């Protein structure tokens, strides 16, 4: 089962033309610059926007085709808007219950208690919307969305209006959502940081068109896409926690291409973690260096090289099938005679733990 969406919206200054298949599990992030049509796409999926010749199927139910258009209030979805739109005339509790009350009892899978607990808003239930901080408001609107037990959760840059601290706070709640509830999420964002932490699947949207859609690890390592050119270009890898090294205060993580060490964390042995390796933190050597301060060294094979400008190149490497990116000077690449197929060693200065 999957989500299939085809929309075409023609406006004077803007055309949205997409044909997408999204997984019906995990978080799919629609990523792109502002004005590229992300929100319009999300609104089309929700039915708030009506594209006359659209088609939308979620799992095995068709929400829109040439014969029918299921109105928004009859679609089993929930929507979190960019700015928390709580009802001003209701307190937090009544806001949370507004949607839930309208869902038949048999379809209520997420209890109010679960939603309240997941978002940590138990102390706020009796307050009015205007007595909440921006972060609290957004948490309440996320809980309100969850309380309708949606089969699809749509989120339109829910963190955009918040400061960095609040972002971090809500991001944690979003991650726990992702881990604990089995609801597919379509998440609109223009922040690579959010993509990195949340996304499983990613859709790149530019000027109303889909430029790429696929697994986030795969898309981030594709050198032909604009994200590889951003200064935040990075590879994402999955690893399992192998052991804790009390003596040196390190935790060892195993991935297909070898072993990585990070500062000791309290993760359980055997749990799966997501890591980010930023391209500019990866250097290459021809021989396995031993006289170096860098701990994370593993063999890789050069897969692809593109020049970014007159002095820099981006190299895509394969560590036993796992793509890693490395940003090097053109001079180093020339001196080392890098070319596809060549075996080298990657030295990774920092590995960021994302979950």
């Amino acid at each position, binding site marked *: 089962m999957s989500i299939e969406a085809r929309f075409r919206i023609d406006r004077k200054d803007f055309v949205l033309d997409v044909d997408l298949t999204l997984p019906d599990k995990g978080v799919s992030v629609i990523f792109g610059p502002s004005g590229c049509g992300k929100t319009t796409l999300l609104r089309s999926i929700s039915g*708030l926007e009506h594209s006359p010749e659209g088609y939308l199927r979620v799992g095995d139910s068709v929400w829109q085709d040439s014969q029918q258009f299921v109105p*928004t*209030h009859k679609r089993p979805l929930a*929507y979190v808007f960019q700015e928390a739109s709580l*009802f001003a005339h209701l307190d937090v509790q009544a806001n949370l219950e507004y949607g839930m009350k309208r869902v038949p009892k048999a379809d209520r899978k997420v209890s109010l208690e679960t939603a309240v607990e997941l978002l940590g808003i138990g102390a706020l239930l009796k307050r009015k919307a*205007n007595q909440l901080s921006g972060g609290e408001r957004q948490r309440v609107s996320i809980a309100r969305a969850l309380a309708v037990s949606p089969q699809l959760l749509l989120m339109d840059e829910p963190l955009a209006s918040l400061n960095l601290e609040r972002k971090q706070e809500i991001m944690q709640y979003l991650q726990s959502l992702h881990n604990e509830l089995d609801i597919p999420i379509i998440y609109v964002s223009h922040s690579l940081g959010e993509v990195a932490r949340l996304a499983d699947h990613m859709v790149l949207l530019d000027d109303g068109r889909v430029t790429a859609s696929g697994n986030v690890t795969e898309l981030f390592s594709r050198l032909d896409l604009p994200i590889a050119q951003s200064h935040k270009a990075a590879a994402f890898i999955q690893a399992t926690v192998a052991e804790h090294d009390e003596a040196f205060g390190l935790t060892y993580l195993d991935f297909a291409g070898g072993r990585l060490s990070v500062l000791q964390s309290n993760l359980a042995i055997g749990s799966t973690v997501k890591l980010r390796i930023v391209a500019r933190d990866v250097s290459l050597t021809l021989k396995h260096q031993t006289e170096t301060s860098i701990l994370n060294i593993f063999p890789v094979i050069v897969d692809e090289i593109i020049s970014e400008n007159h002095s820099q190149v981006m190299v895509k490497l394969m560590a036993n099938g796992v793509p890693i990116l490395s940003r090097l000077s053109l001079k180093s690449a020339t001196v080392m005679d890098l070319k596809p197929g060549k075996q080298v060693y990657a030295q990774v200065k920092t590995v960021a733990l994302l979950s």
Partner: protein
Amino acid sequence: MTLSDADLTALIITLKLACTTTAILLLLGTPLAWWLARTRWRFKFLIEAMVALPLVLPPTVLGFYLLITLGPHGAIGGLMDWLGMKPLAFTFSGLVIGSVIYSLPFVVQPLQGTFASIGTRSLEVASTLRASPIDRFFTVEIPLARSGFLTAAVLGFAHTVGEFGVVLMIGGNIPGQTQVVSIAIYDHVEVLEYSQAHWLSGGLLLASFLMLMIVYALNRRFLVAQP
């Protein structure tokens, strides 16, 4: 007792008229105001201009046309005559019709403004929370518009109490049937009964001020309660 029986009757008729008019205006004005606030019809300005007409028209002009239309030889009056009903001119029902038209902008305009200020976002939120259009109207728009409703009701009521020209033209100043306070005051002054005129005028002044004060005080509270 300083009010004569005739004055008391005029007062009761005035209150009855104002209450009936306000109730009818809220029932008719709410959907009209909602439609004006939400429609994208490009000729809606025509309806808006018609609604606002009583604001600028001399009441006597409005009353004159109503008298013509509702009278036994007018379009509506003639039809009613033909159907075997009594024409509405010089009756309480005629007064109500005149008052409803005359006070229409005082109810529709504040409501339209309030509905417009609520915007569509709250409604979109409600529809993603499973609320049908009717459900959204009653559970989101009406509660969010309560300050507008209060303003509309009090303005409609107060304006009806204060009208003179229209009721005189269409009601004909029949004591016990269509004589309202504002006309009774005029009658007292004409025959130099200043003390009775004082009592009625002072009463109206006080009541009007109290009503408006309550509106502004409550609206302030509502505004404070909303972000």
